[in-house]
Each structure stands twice: as C-alpha cells, then as structure tokens.
C-alpha cells in the first residue's frame, strides 16, 4: 500500500492491547483492514515515547522517538519495518528532548534531537548515521523542543527553544554553514516546523495553553506570529501544509477537536462534531487532554487522529476525515488503547 500518501499509518502506544502491550505500534489502514506492527518495547518509565513521523517521496514512512536515552528510528519498506538506534543521549526522557525526522532527497532520513541541550542532526547515508552539532554564529545553538523539516532544495530547517526564545536555523545540506534567526522571544512548550510546497516555513507554537502560528514575512524581513487559540488541552500539535500551500493544524480545546486552516484570507476554525456519530455509531467526543494530530493524504484530504470515546479512562483512538466538508465526520475506530505518544504520518512538502 502507498502508505505515505493514500493509506494512513498511525503510531501509538499499545499499552492496553493484549497482543501489542507496551509497544510502540504502527497501524496502517488497508482495504483488508488494519495492519498493526509492534516496533519497540515501551516498558519502564516514562510510558510515553514522543513519536514524530514523516513521509518520503516514494511513500515510505519514517518515525523517530526518544526512549530510555536512545533515539530510535524506523521506516517502512516492502520487507517490513526497519528499526535502528540513531544515537544515545544524556538528557532526561521527556517531551522537550523528543527528536524529529524528515527525508532529504533520495529518501535519506535525517533526525534532529536535543542531547543535553545541544541541538544535533543525524543523517543516514545508507551505511551509517553521521551526526553533527548545530553551530550558528548567534550563539543560540543550544536548546530543547527541536523540530525539523526539509525543503525542496534539500535545506534542513530547525526550530527550537532556547533561554531567550524560539529560534529558527537553516542549512543547505550540501554546505556546512548554518544560519539562524529569532522567531519569538516568548518561550514554548512544544514546536512543530513544516515547509510548504513553495518552501515557505511555518512553525506551530504551544506556549503553555496558548497556540500560535509563526511565519516569515518577506515584507517585514522577520518572523511574525498569529495567535490562534488559548486554553487548549493538547500539549502537542502537528503543523502541515496541503498541496496548495495552505498551513493547517488541529488540536483539542474545551472538549472539541478543532481543525484550523489558512487558505489565504485568514484562519478558519472548523470544529468537529461531538457525541455519537450516526454513520459509525462511535462516540467521537475527544478526551480533554488528547492530542489531535493532522496529516493530508494524496488528495489533500485532511486526516486527524485523536483519542476519544465515551469512557475517558479507556479512550479509543479515532481517525476523522475531511471535517470542513462532511457535516458529520466519518470516523474510523482503530482500537482501544491507552493514551500515550501519538503520531500520524504527515504529507511531505
């Protein structure tokens, strides 16, 4: 299956699964049903795995995570999931040190992470992982909450939190020099960077319970930001661009899943219905602190994965399709699992 474009693959913690218990699980929806694979044991503390995902140009999916001081990486292939350890780190296993992943040209995976607050980037050359430490002239090259994407010119972009705010760094992978700039002097508890199809960069920023979207204004020559929401329950967000270059993101706030997209005339907020979905019989209300991760499929249809259901103590992982069009979101029940790290592959820029 062309899992990187047509069929969704969801990564989650199978904490309550009788078969995939305490494993990081990749589940792909196919016409023959869901196909699930346990990728990594998640025993020990903490229970979360802080997964982030990406898709290659040939439909392959890559995912990276932090687990017991090791940066893990897996990618799909016709032979199955290929899993390896990228590096070991000395920092604590928490979300602010979670890695991020993207593909360079030729589907070479590149992983960014924070190792004891040093920002590092590891690229795989089909033989070994080559790691380098971010070094920019401004000196703002240590931090946490690193997020990464690669643009169409093979330039690696990083966004990360330092002691003086959020910074953006860029480097052409064939050259050795990084350039950097401050995005905002505010702090962040979660960041998500993505390049659009025209290589425009956007950063979704969660600061406490506030969500904003930062973008680089060529007119002003600096980063600007749009406040989007406050009081959100999600502590993570995925920024994604559709093929038209419109940025979009999703999150849970006050018991509802919000899908926001900027189609050129400002941000539109579409709220997914809650309660019983008549088409599926599922209770599609999200649990209050669920994440709501977003990706676009090959036809630009937005897909949102989140935890919901009628029992907050035993939530279900749900997929919702095309919320702004369908009056009732068509939701597909994946399985019944506990809340943990969640990632949905996102469409490559």
């Amino acid at each position, binding site marked *: 299956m*062309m899992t990187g474009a047509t069929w969704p693959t969801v990564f989650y913690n199978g904490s309550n699964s009788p078969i995939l218990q305490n494993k990081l699980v990749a589940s*792909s929806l196919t016409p023959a049903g869901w196909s699930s694979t346990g990728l990594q044991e998640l025993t020990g503390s903490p229970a979360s795995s802080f997964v982030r995902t990406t898709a290659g140009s040939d439909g392959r999916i890559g995912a990276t995570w932090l687990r017991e001081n090791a940066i893990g990486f897996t990618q799909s292939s016709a032979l199955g999931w290929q899993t390896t350890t990228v590096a070991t780190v000395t920092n604590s296993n928490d979300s602010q040190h979670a890695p991020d992943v993207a593909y360079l040209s030729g589907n070479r995976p590149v992983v960014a992470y924070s190792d004891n607050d040093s920002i590092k980037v590891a690229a795989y050359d089909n033989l070994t992982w080559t790691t380098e430490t971010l070094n920019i002239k401004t000196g703002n090259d240590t931090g946490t909450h690193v997020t990464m994407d690669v643009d169409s010119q093979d330039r690696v972009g990083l966004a990360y939190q330092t002691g003086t705010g959020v910074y953006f760094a860029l480097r052409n992978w064939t050259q050795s020099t990084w350039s950097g700039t401050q995005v905002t002097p505010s702090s962040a508890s979660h960041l998500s960077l993505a390049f659009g199809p025209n290589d425009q960069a956007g950063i979704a920023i969660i600061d406490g319970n506030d969500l904003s979207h930062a973008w680089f204004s060529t007119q002003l020559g600096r980063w600007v930001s749009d406040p989007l929401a406050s009081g959100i329950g999600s502590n993570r967000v995925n920024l994604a661009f559709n093929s038209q270059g419109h940025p979009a993101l999703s999150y849970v706030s006050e018991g509802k899943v919000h899908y926001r997209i900027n189609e050129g005339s400002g941000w539109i907020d579409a709220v997914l219905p809650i309660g019983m979905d008549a088409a599926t019989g599922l209770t599609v209300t999200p649990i209050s602190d669920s994440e709501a991760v977003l990706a676009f499929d090959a036809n630009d249809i937005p897909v949102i994965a989140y935890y919901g259901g009628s029992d907050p103590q035993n939530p279900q992982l749900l997929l919702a399709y095309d919320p702004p069009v369908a009056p009732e979101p068509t939701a597909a029940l994946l399985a019944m699992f506990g809340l943990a790290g969640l990632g949905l592959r996102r469409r490559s820029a």
Partner: protein
Amino acid sequence: MGALLLVLVAGSAHAGIPIKVVDTEIALPSPPDIAFSSSDENIIAYRHPGQNVLKLAYVTCNSIVYETLYDEGTPGFLPSLAISTLGFPSVVHRTTSDGFGSDGLRYTLDGGGLLGLQTIAIPGAEDGQMAVYAMDTVDRPYVAFRQANNRPGFAHFDIQSGQWVVQTLSTSTLGAAGRYIAVEVNHQDQPVVAYYDSNEDVVIATLGSGGWTTRRHAVGSLPDSGNLSLVLDSVDAPYVAICSSTELAVLRFNLLNVTAQTVVTESNTRLAPHAMGIDSANRLRIAFYQMNDHSLYLASNDFGWTTTLIQSGLTYDPAASLAIDSQSRWSVAYYDKTAQQIRVAGLDVAPSVRADFDCDGDVDADDLTHLESCTTGPAITQFTAACLNADLDDDNDIDMSDFAIFQLCLSGSGVPADPSCAE
C-alpha cells in the same frame, strides 16, 4: 504468509514464442490473471484445484517462486490481480465455505513484511462473482462484478469510513452468462466500468466527482459464455474488445461516436477480461482463443491487425490474461487443459540457462560474481532468498560442485549460453 518454494521449470518454445510451464496438475479449468511487477517480473494469480489454494507465481527467466495467498474453504475462483505502487499484489476472487458467513467476493492483500497477508470478505458483495479488479495511481481498489441478481456491481474501498462500499450500476442485468464486465482507471484516477447488458449494448460508466456518467453502444447479441475486455488509451478513450458470432472486434469510444475495428473475422472466438493490453504508444495486444482450431493467438495492431499463434492443440478455453511491461513487452498467462498446466508465454519468460543469474542471455563474470557472493561452502545451507538460484546442483549449499556446473555453462560476455550446458 504463505510458504515460499523455489522451483525451476524448463521452458518450451511454441511457434517462436517462449512458453513456460508455471504450475502442473491443474485438473479443473482455472483461469489465471497476470500482471507485471515494477521490475517487470511476471506475477500470475490462479486457483490450484488439487491443492485447493489461491496461489501467486513470480516468474522470472530462470525461476518461479510460489506463494499461497489463501487456503480457507474453497478459495480463489476467477482471481483478478493488481500490483500496488510499493509492489504488493492484491487479488479479488470468489471463495466459498471459508467461514466468512456467506460465499462471495474476497479481497486478499499480500502486504509482505510491512502489512502482512490478509483476506477479507467484501461486504455487500455476497454472492458476487466474476470480479474484475483495477487499482488507481494511489492504490485505491475498484472492483466490477456480476451481482447475484445478474446486475452489474461495483465495489470500492472508502477510506473515509474505512469500509467497502458496493453499488449497483444499472437496473438492467448483464447480457449473458459470461463475465461481461470489466474495470480500468483513467488518468484522472476515475474508475471506468464496461459491461454488456440485456439491451445488447456495451455500456461505459465513468465515476467522476458528480457521480456516474454512462455511454452505450448497441452491439447485438453476444455469446452466452463470452467476456469483454477493456483498456484506456493515453487520452482515456475506452477500447472494448468483444467476440460476436462473426468476429473479434474492438470498439473505441471516441468523444462523439464509437468506431469499430475488426480484429479477426472468425466465429467462435473467446476472450478473458484481462485479455487486452495497451502499451505507451497506444498499440493494442489481445490474447484470444479460436475455438475452431483450438488455438491461442495474439492479435497486435502495430500497422493494422496481425495475429500470431501462441499455442495450438488446446481443448478448452484457456482464459488467457495479458499484461504489458514497462518496455512494452507482453506476457500471456493461460490454462492448458490437455496438459493440466498453467502456462505463461512471452519474451520475458524466454528459456534461459540456470547459471545466467542476471537473465541477460550469457554466462559471464557478472554471473560469477553472484555465485561467489552466495557461496556457503559444502553442507552449509544457503537461506538467502536471492541466492537460492545459485544452488545449481540442488543440494542446498553453494560450493565447488555448483562452481563446476557454472564452468560448464560459462560462455563469456555477450555470447549466448548453451541451454543444455548443465545436462
């Protein structure tokens, strides 16, 4: 995942077209379907009645690898095969008594190590039969089939609900007892269904954003046991091949009208749903059975229609299925009732020398490099799938005795190897 078995089957030439035996002891008629992998490897789906399984055969110039796709109940009637962009085969077939509650159409996905081997009943296609299957550029499956009430049915997997959706395309019934329905996908990723209905029309139905649009063309009475075959050319014009009582003809549905070409003026010709292919230069290829002389032919329209004998002496409709590879080379898979075999004919299956590992016709240093890389030593079993073809003496290890056979076959670069070198 079904068990894999590596078998080498000697080829035999007929009428200048290489023919290879794919499987044997097929006592009952078993129409196969064929497709090419992204690496131009022949993949053939068929039911093996004796083994009571739905099988895949991966056919290369010097090997055939078998895989059991489904063995529940009585599986695999009239399989229809498609290959995904990642190279995963999937088959729609009719299966009975397999515990799904009702007999009918099944979808089997061989997702390899990534997605596994899975079979589901297609909901709403209970008692469906005679399915034809196609896939669009992003791997969405479309199935056209004969419903229990003989109406044309259509099934697709709706990703938004995660469910298969089945529709009835017409209140008219299909025209005769044959399959008479086919589906392809155009360049806009819209499914196009062709069927022959009880009004004696060939109907083209296209699913666009506004729903189904249909065109029809009167063709008169067609034989009860026949089929039609559908392809789309580079501008998405549908070609439909039909066998009437007097000829094998191809209809082209143009923008404003329908034009017909006579392929052969013969009565008693027969087609399978995937009997027709079209290459990148819009050249048609049709495999058809001539009942009058019991022969299987290939019809080509390079510069007008010409026919080439593939095999004579057939005593039953071979239900030949045709596929065209990335280099515009065709292969035809068919059933030989006399020999009780599934066979494949075409240039991609040319008989070769076992030591010609890279299938380039010679045995040279490139082949030696493969042998050396696979060497295990005496009595050490070689388990690597890509190296199993280096076991030239079939004793499971790759050692000096294999090298000795290799030396007998060594011809040098560009020099055709002797097919009998290892005997």
